[in-house]
């Protein structure tokens, strides 16, 4: 199981710092917008995978409907800007608030469902939301929200079509923040309680851990953070529609890096994203997108078959030899 993640050698922090420092100065090399965009997406998915990992990896509530929070975040920004003329930065506040409320509302009844049932329920709820958003004319329905492009550099309007580098840094900052937050949670009492209830809920309850309260807490954090990424997506693409933001495929994109890298491990999703995203873009260039999805499906199946706890867990097992009994 993934309980052994506390044995990650602290060297990984140094590696991360160096690589991140390099990424921080990378844009100064003037690499061209395409690479900036690709790395932006890398950060984006690493961030999303981290958010997803909070609830699914740490708390064991395998959420297949996380895209709902993402979409709500995106739509919050869009509606604020296009309908009310307010700055989308407000969406960074309002979005997480809305999704936190949503997470509470969804989590309260569904968290007592056992594993597979929770997964199906979260999937169904996300689909319901997607279908409802498709029919909801006030926010555009299937037409979606089309931003009136500002086409320059505007901090107040949160649009930087003129220079994507700003998005790069915003996402980078968010990623670092999420990573730190994840690390802090992981090494806190809160994190311990979460992992306890993940590994054995009954035992955790017998230790008088309020499993529901803890799960709801992490769910709101996870949902809120996901919503913030949704806001960034909205401001990057300048076009929001239910199918691109709330479908099961979006959730799949979120969870694949986490699965690859290591569920329930702080760095897992980041490593997974750093491997997966460049590979998928390279594949796109060489074999086309359809086959690229096939390869991703195969990768998913292989991960699940041979290293269901993720790459990082395998590495940890190799490094820190037992004493621990390998599964």
């Amino acid at each position: 199981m993934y309980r052994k993640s506390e044995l990650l050698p602290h060297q990984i922090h140094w590696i991360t710092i160096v690589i991140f420092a390099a990424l921080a100065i990378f844009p100064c090399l003037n690499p061209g917008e395409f690479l900036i965009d690709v790395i932006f997406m890398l950060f984006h998915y690493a961030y999303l995978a981290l958010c997803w990992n909070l609830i699914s990896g740490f708390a064991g509530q395998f959420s297949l409907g996380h895209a709902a929070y993402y979409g709500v975040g995106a739509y919050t920004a869009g509606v604020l800007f296009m309908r009310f003329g307010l700055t989308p930065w407000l969406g960074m506040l309002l979005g997480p608030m809305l999704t936190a409320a949503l997470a509470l509302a969804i989590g309260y009844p569904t968290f007592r469902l056992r594993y597979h049932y929770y997964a199906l329920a979260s999937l169904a709820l996300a689909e319901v939301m997607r279908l409802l958003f498709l029919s909801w004319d006030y926010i555009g329905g299937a037409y979606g929200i089309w931003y009136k492009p500002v086409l320059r550099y505007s901090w107040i309007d949160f649009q930087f079509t003129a220079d994507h580098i700003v998005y790069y840094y915003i996402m980078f900052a968010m990623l670092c923040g999420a990573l730190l937050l994840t690390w802090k949670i992981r090494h806190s009492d809160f994190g311990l309680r979460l992992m306890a209830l993940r590994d054995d809920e009954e035992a955790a309850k017998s230790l008088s851990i309020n499993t529901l309260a803890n799960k709801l807490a992490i769910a709101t954090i996870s949902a809120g953070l996901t919503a913030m990424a949704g806001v960034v997506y909205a401001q990057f693409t300048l076009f929001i529609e239910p199918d691109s933001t709330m479908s099961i495929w979006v959730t799949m994109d979120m969870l694949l890096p986490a699965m690859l890298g290591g569920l329930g491990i702080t760095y897992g999703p980041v490593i997974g994203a750093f491997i997966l995203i460049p590979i998928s873009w390279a594949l796109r260039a060489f074999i086309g997108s359809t086959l690229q999805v096939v390869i991703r499906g195969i990768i998913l199946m292989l991960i699940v078959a041979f290293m269901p706890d993720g790459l990082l867990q395998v590495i940890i097992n190799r490094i820190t030899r037992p004493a621990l009994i390998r599964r």
Partner: protein
Amino acid sequence: MLIQVILNGFCLGAIYSLVSIGLTLIWGTMKIINFSHGSLMMVSMYISFWLWLIIDLDPLISIFIIFPLMYGVGYLFQRFIIMPILEAERHAQLLMTFGLMLVIKNTVLYFWRADYRVVLPFYADLFFRMGEIVFDAPRVIAFTAAIALSIGLHFFMTKTSTGVAIRAVAQDSEAASAMGINVHKIYGITCGLGTAFAGVAGALISTYYPVHPDVGTAFMFMAFVTMVLGSMGNYLGAIVAGLIIGVTEGVTAYLLSSSIRQAVAFIVFVLTLLLKPEGLFGRVLRR
């Protein structure tokens, strides 16, 4: 008109039942949710189409080919995909079949493109009219075949030793094993049977519904709803629940609005999970 809608809902529901029988059997015995079920059905729709196009074989006759073929596919599926993850983490089980679904769907998309293929059997435009109510032959045949297969399945499950063994394994696989049942062989048979049923459903649907790589997804989602409503693991429940969902979907679209027809089914799904997770036919679920 409402009667027409309701009756049509039954026909639609019978197909949902057929697809979800496979899902529910697989869950009942192996506790695996098979996300690739829909895509396997889609593949059999393509097989039905190609057989019709190339050797002019009517889909109803091709069922006799598809049933054993998909049975074999299901058996191999169990052997190579499910077997390795039977004892694995739950998230592994969920995602393995999801990955397979991605692979199958996109491979089909890559080779056979996104064009819609239509099978036009000679009875495609054969209608039976009773006053205002009309039935089209393909759907009537599909309904009849689905019901017949369901009855056949029931006989199989109750009167044959294999069927009983499957039910035993679904109820308690350890005890069944202790009684001398080869549990793994039963898993294989169940998977084969479930996939074969999905294959037949595909062949039946292809007589009136255009074939496309995305077809599996829509039917599969409905099959999930049906499976949960009819109590996961309970194949009789799946049959009844399928009919209920089919009628509900049709009536919602008629009386309320088409745009929420799918949403209503999902809401039913969530409510069932929350309020009565054992489904309508409350079986005690294994831990």
